[in-house]
């Protein structure tokens, strides 16, 4: 009897996770599909797309990694740029420290699968009442990775069978960043972080040109933000998710 209701609660957590993750289903299958197409279009072997989906499980970093591999970049360069691209995750993880407390054996997977989208849902949608929140988070993370894997696999398989002209599809990532920037503008209504970053990009592009632009601009932005701390801090954690 008790076992029965526990299973019922678990099923409820999984179905809530499925419903909460429908936007991710749509996004991950279509962006994953585009990734598979682009990867095969770059002349890389098809199996690399599902393999990356399984082990790397990162959107923008996978696009970048495929581009770098096709361009013949070295291992160090790929590692450094991945760090740069995913460095923002170091900031995100801070706000789910409490939510993931007590996850036990499932915690390593929850941390591994902490993508932007999973993080977004974990911090905005509450697990169903009465269920174990970890069941909900775990199902959500696993389903998200399943959609991503299927998208990447389908894109690579179809891109291999039918040669598509995929040039231009990579603009989807730029568009994603535009959307994320607009969401930031909505929640953090101070001009300083945006202006500091724009200044950092301008300085970096003059100083180092396009190749290490993002790295140098990120470091400069951190320095500028720390210098602006006195000015920004009284506003009080405008974007803090905690």
């Amino acid at each position, binding site marked *: 009897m008790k076992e029965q209701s526990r299973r019922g609660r678990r099923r409820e957590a999984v179905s809530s996770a499925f419903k909460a993750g429908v936007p991710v289903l749509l996004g991950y299958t279509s962006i994953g599909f585009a990734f598979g197409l682009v990867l095969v279009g770059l002349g890389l072997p098809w199996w690399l797309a599902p*393999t990356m989906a399984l082990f790397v499980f*990162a959107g923008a970093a996978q696009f970048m990694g495929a581009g770098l591999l096709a361009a013949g970049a070295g291992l160090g360069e790929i590692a450094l740029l991945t*760090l740069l691209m995913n460095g923002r995750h170091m900031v995100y*993880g*801070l706000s789910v420290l409490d939510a993931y407390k007590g996850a036990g054996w499932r915690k390593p997977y929850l941390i591994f699968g902490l993508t932007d989208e999973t993080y977004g849902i974990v911090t905005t949608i509450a697990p169903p009442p009465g269920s174990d929140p970890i069941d909900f988070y775990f199902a959500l993370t696993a389903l998200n990775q399943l959609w991503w894997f299927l998208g990447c696999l389908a894109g690579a398989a179809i891109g291999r069978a039918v040669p598509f002209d995929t040039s231009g599809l990579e603009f989807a990532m730029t568009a994603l*960043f535009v959307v994320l920037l607009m969401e930031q503008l909505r929640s953090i209504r101070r001009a300083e972080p945006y202006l500091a970053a724009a200044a950092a990009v301008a300085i970096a592009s003059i100083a180092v040109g396009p190749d290490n632009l993002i790295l140098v601009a990120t470091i400069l932005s951190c320095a500028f933000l*720390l210098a602006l701390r006195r000015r*920004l801090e009284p506003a009080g954690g405008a974007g803090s998710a905690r």
Partner: protein
Amino acid sequence: MTRLIPAVAAMTIVTVLTRAAPFLFFSRREPPAAVDYLQAYLPPALMTILVLSAFKDVAWAEFPHGIPAIAGATATALVHLAKRNVLLSIACGTAAFIALTRLLA
């Protein structure tokens, strides 16, 4: 193959380390105030950098002078302002970019 597997391994390790970093550092103690502060203001700065750096390889001096990229980003922003639907915004912006790239080729 000999190049691809180590590259995937490197990307996996680095990605996991970035995601695990806060759990490794702050599981037993409170993050310092400067980290809390950066946590709030780094995302808008990073998104600004990512958007601006997407234009770093545009050949402004040559036809079509970056028009597809500018128009694609503008279309994304306008559709997002109107509908606030992430996928729709991305689809419209990308379609605008691809269409203009081919029309102005």
